[in-house]
């Protein structure tokens, strides 16, 4: 990790009606960093992802990719600029094979079938899906689907990858397997990652830095150990009294 900021959120808010789903959030992602985004259900994590990836326009604030403001751009534009994302509920393109699914991502940078195939095969090698490349995407197991979803996003050659709960639905062995893969992605491809995760052990293992959202607000930020002992964080997770009693 070095000090180049690749993604910067500047006082981003998103209101639905009168309710703030994301409230004045500022954060920075450095080159090569894995930044964990945690918080109780309904804290606004996915909404924040949607703001970054262009699926919803922030009510206020600016988002910068490097120096370039990208607030309010369309999702496909943002992808082309180098931000990949996965969705909470994975949905492979069922008409197509695993390889073809990944090729859709690869077409982001090339029009050539052969080149797209080449890129995709490399990515599948990296994500350990090579042996399943000709399988029907709908026939995959859940863990393979999750890896396919990541592989697809990687094929767009992102500088930043947003992972939305990739471990949800995986057993501990599978989730360890995917964690290794995510680490590998950062180390080998030099991609910065922002990940939403519920499984704490994964966050602890993977992230260099953690941000905690509660009620749309950024309530804590720092290294994993610091954040989990932060009183406000414990409060938001476990309730008021527990925090004070176990000080």
């Amino acid at each position, binding site marked *: 990790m070095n000090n180049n900021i690749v993604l910067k959120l500047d006082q981003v808010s998103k209101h639905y009606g009168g309710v703030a789903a994301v409230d004045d959030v500022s954060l920075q992602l450095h080159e090569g960093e894995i930044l964990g985004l945690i918080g109780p259900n309904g804290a606004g994590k996915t909404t924040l992802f949607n703001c970054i*990836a*262009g*699926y919803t326009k922030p009510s206020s604030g600016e988002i910068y990719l490097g120096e370039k403001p990208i607030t309010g751009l*369309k*999702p*496909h534009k943002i*992808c*082309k600029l180098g931000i*990949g*994302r*996965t*969705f909470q509920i994975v*949905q*492979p*393109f*069922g*008409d*197509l094979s695993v390889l*073809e699914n990944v*090729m*859709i*991502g690869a*077409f*982001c940078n090339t*029009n050539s*079938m052969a080149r*797209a195939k080449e890129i995709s095969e490399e990515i599948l090698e990296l994500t350990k899906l090579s042996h399943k490349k000709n399988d029907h995407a709908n026939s995959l197991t859940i863990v393979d689907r999750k890896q396919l979803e990541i592989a*697809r*996003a990687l*094929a*767009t050659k992102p500088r930043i990858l947003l992972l939305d709960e990739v471990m949800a639905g995986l057993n501990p062995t599978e989730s360890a397997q995917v964690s290794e893969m995510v680490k590998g992605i950062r180390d080998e491809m030099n991609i910065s990652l922002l990940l939403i995760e519920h499984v704490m052990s994964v966050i602890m293992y993977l992230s260099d830095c953690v941000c905690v959202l509660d009620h749309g607000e950024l309530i804590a930020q720092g290294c994993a150990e610091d954040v989990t002992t932060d009183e406000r964080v414990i409060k938001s997770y476990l309730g008021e009294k527990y925090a004070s009693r176990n000080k």
Partner: protein
Amino acid sequence: MKIKKSTRIIILIVGLLLLAFPQIVQNDYYIQTAIMIAFFAYMASCWNILGGLAGQISFGHSVYAGIGAYTSTLLFIYLGISPWLGMLLGGLLAGVIAVLIGMPTFRLQGTYYTLSTIAFLTVVRILVLSNPTILGLETRGAQGMIIPLVNGGDSPANMQFLTKTPIYYVIIIMLVVVAAITNYLKNSKTGYYFSAIKTNQDAAAALGVNVSRYKLICAFISAFLTALGGTFYAQLAMYVDPSTLLGNEMGQQFGIIAIVGGRGTILGPIIGSLVLVPLQEIGRALFGGTVQGFHLVLYGLIMMIIVLFLPDGLVSLFKKLKPKNIKKSTNVNQLGANSEQ
């Protein structure tokens, strides 16, 4: 994409049979029936590019057939432009109109999109039906236009033929071309993008797919090809009128044939046409033209049954057989490998 040897041989045999067909049967009635089957297979294939590959369901697609037929016919009557050229111009016009109408309506999904296709067809039909002229050119409203004969109808340069056989070859070539285009699309970036859009537009956009742009590209291709079919139909009948080419019936049939056969596949529309179009002939044979609507009653019924029980169309019957074959062949390979050891 590599085509397997066995597939190539089948294609070759089917191709030769298709070429030889008029020589073998030498019967105008059968050739005419074959022309109609090929025509509807062609139109359903055009529909399939938008409805099957990209998942945008239109039941007003005949509007583009009408635009193609009227354009080539008007160009022929007023400027003497051969329908061979006119059909391309009609196709371009239809494509442009499809893009213009697609811009607002593609924002709709599902019900209201399909509704908008039916509504647009209805509006164009009414405008043509109730106006004797369009842009100052005489179109004769409901009466329709008879395409004037050149040299007594023997003028291949003007897409006029005395016998059925050349017409048969024209539509077979068109069908082969649209099947090839579908095959190309299915194996190209564009086709992959269509498939992604069909499954999940949000996920597609996350991978850099410009969803609205590719929908419009798809609409353009589909409308362009449909319009060529419209000109063909006009030259076949030597007559253009709003109630056939711009009728609801046509608009529905293209979709039904593709859906019954199997959406999103190359063979689906062809199988659908082979099964459904002969029903028209059976109806004619049974009732001698005194009863209207017979074949469409069956079309509607078959479509309901297919949607209920075989949502991927008749083609899926063949596909269900396939995995077994694959398993068998791997078994054979394993055996072979073992014996080599």
